């Protein structure tokens, strides 16, 4: 048993090194395939971040009466913050609301003139409520509707529901499309790797036939090639990991500039999930290599 294992390992390494150019080509194809898979993962992470960024923008404005006292408003805010559906609440006073309005329309002289004409601040204090999760949005609306407090000016949340449904619909379609495209690319990548291994075994066709004619069993012939497939997968994953981190580090500043205020740390994400990401790729690549090897060697050893 030990002798057979030692022979399998020896033959496998012999095959890799004595066919070094073929081995390098196979390895390069595998590295490119794994790089593609990792790029898809990057696109997914960035995409998820973009979707979350959009969803985070969604909040509910609770407009309060102009006559509401500061302490009443703060008391209401404190009560609402206790709700599990509420993530955080920002209190915008009448004065703050006016300042923000003026800033927003600073290049619109007509609006500013109209405001000056009014003489008073028409805006009302507002509580801007961020939900914990958009899935709980309906519950949050129901809870807000159930609050009995006389300082609340209006509670018309119908528009929010409409906008939210639209956003959810769009993000779901984007996610589904991304999933479909990713699956398609992963499938194509697997096919490329599978065929690359088959071609590699094809170049050994004569050798396999000779081994079979000399009396080698199919298992004796297959095992070194199966081990070679695992070695290629291991080397490929290591190479991709070593190439990908510098690539991500180069990409990171651009992502941070694009997603200002959001935490998009790709190197950290990959590092934090290194075992899962590269472990899965190693297992996947090994499996594809082994399946391709098994079928190809079986075909050429039918002598």
């Amino acid at each position, binding site marked *: 048993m030990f*002798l*057979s294992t030692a*022979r399998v390992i020896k033959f496998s390494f*012999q*095959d890799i090194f*004595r*066919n070094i150019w073929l081995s390098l080509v196979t390895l390069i194809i595998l590295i490119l395939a794994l790089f593609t898979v990792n790029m898809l993962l990057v696109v997914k992470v960035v995409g998820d971040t973009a979707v979350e960024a959009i969803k985070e923008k969604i909040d509910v404005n609770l407009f309060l009466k102009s006559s509401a006292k500061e302490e009443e408003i703060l008391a209401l805010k404190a009560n609402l913050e206790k709700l599990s559906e509420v993530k955080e609440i920002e209190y915008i006073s009448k004065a703050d609301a006016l300042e923000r309005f003026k800033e927003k329309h600073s290049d619109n002289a007509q609006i500013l003139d109209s405001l000056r004409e009014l003489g008073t601040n028409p805006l009302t204090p507002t509580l801007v409520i961020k939900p914990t999760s958009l899935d709980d949005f309906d519950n949050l609306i129901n809870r807000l509707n159930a609050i009995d407090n006389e300082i609340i000016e209006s509670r018309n949340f119908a528009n929010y529901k409409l906008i939210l449904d639209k956003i959810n619909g769009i993000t779901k379609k984007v996610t589904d499309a991304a999933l479909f495209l990713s699956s398609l690319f992963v499938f194509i990548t697997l096919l490329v790797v599978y065929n690359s291994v088959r071609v590699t075994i094809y170049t050994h066709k004569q*050798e396999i*036939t*000779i*081994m*079979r*004619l*000399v*009396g*080698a*069993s*199919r298992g*004796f012939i297959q095992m070194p090639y199966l081990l070679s497939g695992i070695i290629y997968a291991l080397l490929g994953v290591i190479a991709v990991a070593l190439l990908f981190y510098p690539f991500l580090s180069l990409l990171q500043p651009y992502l941070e500039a694009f997603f200002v205020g959001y935490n998009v740390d790709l190197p950290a994400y990959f590092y934090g999930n290194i075992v899962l990401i590269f472990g899965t790729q190693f297992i996947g690549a090994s499996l594809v290599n082994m399946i391709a090897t098994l079928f190809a060697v079986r075909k050429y050893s039918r*002598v």
Partner: protein
Amino acid sequence: MIKCYNVIKMYPRNYQALQGVNLHIRPGEFVSIVGQSGSGKTTLVKTLIGEEKITHGKIVIGGWDITNIGQREIPVLRRQIGVIFQDFKLLNKKTLFENVSFAMQVCGGSPSKIRKIVPHVMKIVGLEQKMHRYPQEISGGEQQRVAIARALVHRPKILLADEPTGNLDSINANEIIELLLRINKFGTTVILVTHNREIVNSLRRRVITIEGGKAINDQAIGKYIL
């Protein structure tokens, strides 16, 4: 040692390569199987090593009926018959030593046994000085001698040589035949499949003539009659 009873081999589209071959080869014999190209000689060799399954008949080798041999048993059969091919069939990415020792490794031979036997066999074929060369670094005659060494290394009772001199010049061809005769002297049954008239006539050994897929002649001290 080898018995063929009415062996028939049909290929698709009703092509009959062997049409009822009957022969009996005894242990220790040196037999030449001769015939023109396309007569069925190589097909007969293929059936003897399990490369082709016969359509009808029976083949018994060393008491083992291999007529319906399974895929898993074929390697076992081939380890018991030494085979030499016209195109040598050496593994180009292995040294001569590794090519010969491969035949022992497939049988599970230990490294110590391999280190002892392989150099001895290489010496018999006169290539002990070139053990660590690769096949492409030696001549055709030398490659065929390595193939013979590989065929001999697990001491088969039968040595089957399918056109071993087909790709060689006359000098190298004679050397190979001399080697086969020496091997036969040690008790190994040698079956030489050839269409070389001069070699067959010079051997003065048993000759079975195959023509049209049938054994049409069998002479104890035979000649090439076609």
